[in-house]
């Protein structure tokens, strides 16, 4: 639960100012609240990774990587194993060590979708185990608030977490229960005594 209060750190690495600016703008579009660090060279990236070892997300444009650096980077990536990575480039190579990939020629819509997956989707490895388990205590808190008709913002304020965390919880709840609509979730909450009938709207 402490994790939720911790700040999210994202690094955007590209030689091109316009690329960094573009990515930052899109992060706003998807409503990400994160500390953003920018690197305009590979060396700068290494420095930031050293300074901010708890980095959660790394968005990297391939212009910053010369061929020989690819190998150095493999080492860097291993040292920050908690961090999720996405590559922006021309073509996805077969032995790509990045978790996600955005093509330079993608449309706005598909870039936004990719970024949303990148930031909000549970990683495939652990999601299956997650699914078969019941809701966590925190997810039950969020579900309760959803069933009572609270908005994401209200839930974030009540539980002292960021809106992104609320969204992540909601996604996980939906994938565990298979229920998408608010009224469906409310029925579930009532059936399981998570809320009382007189509380429901």
């Amino acid at each position, binding site marked *: 639960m402490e994790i939720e209060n911790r700040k999210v750190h994202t690094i955007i690495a590209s030689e091109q100012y316009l690329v960094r600016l573009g990515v930052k703008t899109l992060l706003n579009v998807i409503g990400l609240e994160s500390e953003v660090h920018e690197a305009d060279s590979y060396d700068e990236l290494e420095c930031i990774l050293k300074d901010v070892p708890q980095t959660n997300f790394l968005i990297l444009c391939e212009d910053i990587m010369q061929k020989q650096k690819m190998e150095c980077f493999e080492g860097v990536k291993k040292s920050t194993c908690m961090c999720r990575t996405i590559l922006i480039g021309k073509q996805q190579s077969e032995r790509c060590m990045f978790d996600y990939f955005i093509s330079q020629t993608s449309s706005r819509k598909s870039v936004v979708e990719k970024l949303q997956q990148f930031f909000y989707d549970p990683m495939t490895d652990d999601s299956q185990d997650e699914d078969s388990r019941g809701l966590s205590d925190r997810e039950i808190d969020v579900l309760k608030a959803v069933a009572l008709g609270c908005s994401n913002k209200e839930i974030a304020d009540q539980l002292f977490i960021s809106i992104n965390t609320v969204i992540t919880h909601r996604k996980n709840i939906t994938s565990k*229960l*298979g*229920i*998408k*609509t608010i*009224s*469906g979730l409310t*029925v*579930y909450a*009532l*059936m*399981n005594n998570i809320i009382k009938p007189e509380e429901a709207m």
Partner: protein
Amino acid sequence: MIAFTRHSKMAEIILKDYQLLPVINRFGIKLGFGNKTVNEICEEKKVNVPFFLEILNSYHNSDYFPDKHFSDFNAEVMVEYLTNTHTYYLKSKVPHIELFIKKMEEEAQEENCRNISLLKTFFEEYKVDVEHHFKEEERSVFPYVLDLERALSTNNCSQELINKIKNDPIEVYERNHESLEVKLADLKNLIIRFLPPLHCEDDCEHLLTELFELECDIEDHTRMEEKVLIPKVKMLEKKVLEYYGN
């Protein structure tokens, strides 16, 4: 998969795919076909044969859809069909589902009573959504489609219609076209995963079957609106604007 043609025997079509029964019903075609072909039956009932065949084939085989032949029909035939489908859902499908929920409610043990009445309320809400959705289409979208077609066939077009094409085209409806299946999927999930076991398994099974069928049917219906009606209307809008020089 072989497509049905105008020479196919009606009885054989239904023997092959009984799920087409409600579909032919919407065209006013009743059982007792004897050995008549699609052509003969459609002539009797004054049904547009190519349109009827496209609908049968697209319901029978989802890969068959969408087809370029659709652009050959009048929008009027299509609007009539879609309106009949709405009526079929509300007058036949929804009451069936309500009936099974009611039966389950009557037979449920005490501890499950409350759960079933929650599901009942959930479905009532869904019914209101669906009614509203259909009413909106029948009130604003379908008449608009017919107006467009009339403007082209009668060479007479009101300024009002031109303004509508410019300010409130079908694209607006397309963007706001909500999915009616999501809540149905939720209801199925609630029953399959979370409803404690019931003693009236038969009713529950029937209810689920109805829900699965309705979901499939509504999916086909939505596909028809989005892949056939909307492109057709966009084409009509363009033609009207071209003819009336605006």
